[in-house]
């Protein structure tokens, strides 16, 4: 298994390099260093000299990919790509172009805030969706199943924005049970800020979650071993929660484990609307401010986590099924 993991990690390097290069090229295709300088310096009283100064101070005066006036190896190293993008592979994220803050430190600071939001949503959602999906699967082909599906489709059809604004209006403004938005670094005080976004995060995806897992369970409960278990006189709870759930683990794991690394990336909309200073709102802010350094770091982190998630899924298969061998 170790050899397999090493091989997978080695495969990841060119993937990450390609993603990095692609993002670099795409970004510079739409946004030149001059634009970045103007975005930073603003419109008023800006001169060409100031723009040149800004580029020089932020390292954007260098050529993008090849510095043809320099000898080898500076032909590669004295370029924007080498100085800004290559250090990412050592997890050196550099500084924000807009406020000069250290991106690595910001990530460290913000990841716990994102996790405060995403972990409860992830855990409670998973349990709730599995539970409801099994119930609905149990009542398959009854009017309960039909109505549950109708409700699921309705819930899936509603925009996330509606859940957020509706939730804020109902719970925070009308019922006055939770703050409209905000956050507190002290977890004791942060709970009251998290209740509403967590609730909305769970409810907003309940339709799609229950439908997805119901499909998996329906596939399982029609199999012979379930019929055998029932024929042996096992209770319906045991049949569902022990036998069916265990055997449905493969597709569930594929869906769940690949999502785990992404928990640290936060949730864009919820963080933005509820003022939670996690990585989701960091990413949105960076896009709005055209902060290339932060966007580049977040895309790199996202691609890294995706690759890590896929490796974790493979490893998790060996844990739930001893027959699986990673070679």
């Amino acid at each position, binding site marked *: 298994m170790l050899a397999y993991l090493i091989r997978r990690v080695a495969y990841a390097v060119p993937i990450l390099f390609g993603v990095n290069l692609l993002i670099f090229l795409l970004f510079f295709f*739409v*946004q*030149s260093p001059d*634009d970045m300088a*103007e975005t*930073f*310096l603003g419109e*008023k*009283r*800006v*001169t060409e000299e*100031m723009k040149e*100064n800004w580029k*020089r*101070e*932020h*390292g954007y005066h260098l050529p993008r990919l090849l510095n043809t006036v*320099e*000898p080898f*190896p*500076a032909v590669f*190293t*004295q370029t924007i790509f080498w*100085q800004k993008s290559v*250090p990412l592979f050592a997890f050196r994220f*550099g*500084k924000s172009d*807009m*406020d*000069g803050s250290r991106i690595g*430190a910001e990530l460290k600071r*913000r990841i716990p805030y994102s996790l405060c939001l995403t972990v409860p949503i992830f855990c409670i959602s998973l349990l709730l969706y599995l539970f409801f999906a099994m119930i609905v699967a149990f*009542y398959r082909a*009854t009017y*309960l199943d039909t109505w549950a599906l109708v409700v699921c489709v309705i819930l899936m059809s509603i925009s996330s924005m509606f859940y957020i*604004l509706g939730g*804020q209006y109902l719970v*925070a*403004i*009308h*019922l*006055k*049970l*939770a*703050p*409209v*938005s*905000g956050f507190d670094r002290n977890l004791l*005080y942060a709970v*009251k800020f998290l209740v509403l976004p967590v609730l909305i995060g769970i409810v907003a995806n309940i339709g799609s979650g229950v439908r997805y897992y119901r499909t998996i369970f329906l596939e399982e409960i029609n199999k012979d071993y379930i019929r055998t278990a*029932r*024929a042996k*006189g096992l209770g319906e709870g045991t049949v569902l929660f022990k036998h069916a759930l265990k055997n449905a683990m493969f597709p569930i794991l594929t869906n769940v484990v690949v999502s785990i690394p992404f928990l640290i990336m936060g949730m864009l909309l919820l963080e*933005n609307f*509820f*003022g939670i*200073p996690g990585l989701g*709102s*960091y990413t949105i*802010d960076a896009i709005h401010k055209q902060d290339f350094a932060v966007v580049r770091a977040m895309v790199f982190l996202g691609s890294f986590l995706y690759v890590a998630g896929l490796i974790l899924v493979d490893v998790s298969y060996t844990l739930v099924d001893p027959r699986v061998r990673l070679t």
Partner: protein
Amino acid sequence: MVNRKTTRIPMTARPRPGLRRRCAAALVLCAGLAACTNNPYRPGETAEPALFAAFSTPPTKLDPTSAYYVHEGQIIDQIYEPPFTYHYLKRPYEVIPLTAEAVPQPVYYDGNGRRIADPDPPSDAVARAEYTIRIKPGIRYQDHPCFAAGPDGQPLYAGVPLDAVEAYESPNDFPHRATRALRAEDYALQIRRLADPRLASPVFSTLSAYIDGLRELSDAYAGMLEAERARRRAAAGPAYNRQRDERENPIRLDYFAPDFPGVTVHDALTFTLALKRKYPQIRYWLCMHFFAPVPPEAVAFYTQPAMIEKQFSLNRWPVGTGPYFLKIFRPNETIVLERNPNYHPDAYPADGMPEDRAAGLLDDAGRRVPFIHRQVMHLEKEAVPAWNKFLQGYLDASGVSVDVFDQAIQIQMTGEPTLSPSMESKGIRLITDIDTTLWYTAFNMLDDVVGGYAPEQRKLRRAVSIALDYNEFLDIFLNGRGVLAQGPLPPGIFGHRPGPEGTNPYVDTWDPVRERHARRPLSEARRLMAEAGYPEGRTPGGEPLTLYYDHAQGGDTFFRSYFEWVRGRLDTLGIRLRERATDLSRYRQKRDQGNWQISSGGWLADYPDPENFLFLFYGPNGKVAHGGPNMVNYVNPEYDALFERMESMRNTPERQALIDAMLDILRRDAPAVWQYHPVSYILAHPWLHNVKPHNMSYNTIKYRRVDPDLRVRQQRAWNRPVWWPLAALAALLVLSTVPAAVTLYRRNRCSPT
């Protein structure tokens, strides 16, 4: 010791298994429900004399050299103190001393270095102007670790390793902090820092045209930096990464090394600022944070590797003498300003405008400021949550966005805005003020069709101006929150004439009934079109006249509606308006090259002087020819000559006459459609006092006062939780399980097993 084996509990008294846990769970649930509140603050926080506000854009630059945006000024202007400031209540804006003992009169010298006796000489007679400023003694900085000294008198934290400061979240966490008195050299340092190319001061290009030797100083600094970087790069080899290197080993520029005739320090409390020419507007610049003092100790403290690693810098942790210091700076969450215990004696103004007394703005006259101990600001990126928090009483004041206008404001038959009954019932006050801002539709004067100075070309621009009725725009898009502009000068700026005598006669008339300006009738615009050679909007060849609107706001839904309105208005003259949407980069390129036809522009006053608006049309400021702020590329020698006479004059009747003549030229040539000056609406809760909008200065928090007891009472009254819908929902959920239970029961009964 108790023998556990012999301890028996009677069966009747022994708790049933799980009951204790259930009781505990119920208690926790009850406590949790009792803690349910929409109050976003910690218990008791709003009972303090603190101001609660929201900010929507995180500040990125708090260094007084480079901060330029309003939201940054709103923070650092509470911390830094330039030599002068504006009177809080008086209008027109009046410059008064802040840290200076007085606002000095300039001393002028001619080309031979002889002093000119005339206090207001003509500009061309002046070769040098000197402002000698004496600061008040006894002004002290906030407590800061940069001032802490060891027993040997050396800075205590010089060369401090990262390990020693790793645990600190801010400079306020350092165990040793100290203060010192403000000195004239601190002002000298800050003026020199304006020339540091690394700091990219947005006002450098403007000020270097006036301050003696500032440009040469910048060149000297750039040379020093390049030499040091070249040395480091040669030593490090091809893998040299400058940003990383300078983070680990920052370059310490010796700011006082190069000669600089612009500032001379005479003694601990006196310095002279020298200008290359007459420039009375410098006194307004001296009210801005660009001229606030920065202690050399702070610069040395923050250029240590450990501080850079911890992101402790002047860009994030200012060091000032003002009424507040930065207690918490988490730009993506919370910013807290705390009262500076070292703040020098300062009092609420004893006089103001005649209406201020009736408005209660002089109730605190002469009392020592600041009244508010803390200002707590939380990030609210979205307008809706911020508005709802204001309605709940958790924010002390709010603006009025278009989305909530109808909820907050009612427009009377007279056009007067008043509060809606729901706002009035809460005791909320409405405060309005005309912003010193100009919005205009720009014609590119270099364009063959809409530009030019021939009478026909002027008539075309005037016709377009009449057709674009911005009173209609204000009613449709901004709920009437604006004043139709009659030229570039907004109300409150010297030179602006209100009422009928300020009318732009080419485009507008005075409506005596509604007491406001109104556009001339469209028939007049059609006549002008015909005289311009476009009868009914047709070119001499019979084709419809097609104009192009250049912009970079393709994704902006508001702009889309606005553009449709503009297109519809021009359609009434038979003009076809096409849009040329590009990205921002391309748009800037087109603007710099003069390759556009019609666009829009705006200008927010830096200082209350007509020069700050009229220079937007001064020929040598042309965008294409000189890269200046004259976006429309307007060149009129007559106007330029008047501008050169007017720009450095005092506010005298003679200056007013020059401005009148300049405005007449601009109105006649119509290089822009004068759109409007926005009116800002502020809503304030009844517990917030001394609120008067100030367009020029942001250091006004020290004058605000709150009544925390009233705030707490009102917050409680307005935010009682409503529980019954939750109980109803729980009942509904229980009921919804009944069919499932019935189905299960039936299935089990029918099951063969």
